[in-house]
């Protein structure tokens, strides 16, 4: 080090300054890309204008419907997804069937929502795969609240199932074995060991799943339509309002941002150390 040249020292000084500066600039750029639109939502109107925007007749039916359908979706996903995740996580040997199941579960995450909408129509629509059977049973799914729930569950399920699977895989297999040796059959092991020990991660996955269901737009629009009070959820109401009244669109967006940010904040608070 004593033989270091002046040029070498200058290069080191330059790196010491330039490298963090470049990193800061790039990172700051990404943060502002996310932050600026949120700031635009929150600060381009006064609070009073935002509250007034909530007086539009579109607003309350959309909020009511969104709370109802996203909660129903969450219940549907948790009640079916928890046993599925448990069964997949407890397979002793990972094999091709398991990989296939995992791929199927992850599919909705990478599918464009519009594709999900078309797919749902082609499965449950009048001319879809199950269309004739559903018609015989007197069930018409498209353009109903049930369709909204199906669309939301389709796109949101992976977020919960994947979190639940990861949680169940982290479970110490010795705890399960000891529980069984103490006489606990599979259901008791699931309810008294599996679920309680995975609870924080299950709650985190459920919150993500709910947030995704709240914001579902594309698949709902195509499969359930945009009928006020029946299938028009908050994101669809924002889309509709945008065409006539930017203020209402903004007010509804602020509501969604507030709810989503609160969910995210709660998630961070509960995250594992």
């Amino acid at each position: 080090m004593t033989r270091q040249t002046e040029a070498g020292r200058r290069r080191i000084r330059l790196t010491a300054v330039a490298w963090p500066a470049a990193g800061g600039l790039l990172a700051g750029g990404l943060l502002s890309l996310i932050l600026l639109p949120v700031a635009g939502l929150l600060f381009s109107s006064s609070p009073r204008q935002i509250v007034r925007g909530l007086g539009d007749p579109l607003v309350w039916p959309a909020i009511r419907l969104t709370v109802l359908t996203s909660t129903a979706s969450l219940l549907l996903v948790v009640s079916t997804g928890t046993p599925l995740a448990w069964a997949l996580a407890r397979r002793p040997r990972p094999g091709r069937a398991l990989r296939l199941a995992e791929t199927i579960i992850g599919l909705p995450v990478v599918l464009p929502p519009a594709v999900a909408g078309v797919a749902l129509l082609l499965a449950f629509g009048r001319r879809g795969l199950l269309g004739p059977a559903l018609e015989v049973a007197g069930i018409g799914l498209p353009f109903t609240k049930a369709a909204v729930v199906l669309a939301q569950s389709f796109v949101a399920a992976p977020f919960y199932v994947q979190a639940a699977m990861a949680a169940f895989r982290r479970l110490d297999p010795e705890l399960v074995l000891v529980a069984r040796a103490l006489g606990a059959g599979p259901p008791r092991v699931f309810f008294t060991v599996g679920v309680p020990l995975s609870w924080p991660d299950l709650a985190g996955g459920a919150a993500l799943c709910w947030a995704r269901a709240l914001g579902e737009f594309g698949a709902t629009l195509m499969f359930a339509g945009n009928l006020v009070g029946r299938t028009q959820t908050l994101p669809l109401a924002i889309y509709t309002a945008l065409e006539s009244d930017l203020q209402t669109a903004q007010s509804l967006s602020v509501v969604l941002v507030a709810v989503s940010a609160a969910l995210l904040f709660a998630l961070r608070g509960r995250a594992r150390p």
Partner: protein
Amino acid sequence: MTATPTDDPGALEADLQGRVGGLEIDVALRATAERPTVIVGPNGAGKTTLLLMILGAHRPRAGHVRRAGESLYDAKAGIDLPVEHRRVGFLPQRYALFPHLDVRANVAYGIRAATRAERSRLAEQALESLGIGALARRRCPELSGGEAQRVALARALANQPATLLLDEPLGALDAAVRADTRTFVAERVRALGVPTIIVTHARADAAAFGGEIIVVEGGRVSQRGRLEELVARPASAFVRRFAVEHAPY
């Protein structure tokens, strides 16, 4: 086999063949209620795997596990009772106490009683009988190694198992508490009076539990007999180190 199959109707008989993780296991053993059977052997010899096969957590390829004339596993007859129906108590090396339950709830987990209150009462009784009643309301992650060991033993005993499997019951303890705990476990196991199999690393454990010692090397029995017999005629380099030179392995 050194033991004769007539002396104890409650004995556990196992004759198991199977392959787990590249190791071929082929072991026959018999455990009676009078003296625990002690399994020793080098690391990776298949000792824990053998316990897991008796417990029902690993399925062997062939053989049988019988207790008091009842088949827990029988490859030929197609019998393979699930773990929860075998009434085999299992104490794993790291105890595996349920971290989300307090000590009393851990012990109550395996107790069959009509009401929750009755289970709790019996759990407290079980803790008292092992002299650790004071721990009842403690959280498991706060326990010391010796305390956790006793709680795990209390939990296994409270379930009234018909067979007991202990995997390195003293292996995770400091030398200071090991001697005390060894005497304690040996007394309790004797008092329980069911066929018991203990896997251990330490000659002192084998001496304290006092039954037949089965040496397992490479998935097979290389020698069996009482400690004195092993000392007098060690059949392998491992047995010589274990029994004669007292070397820890």
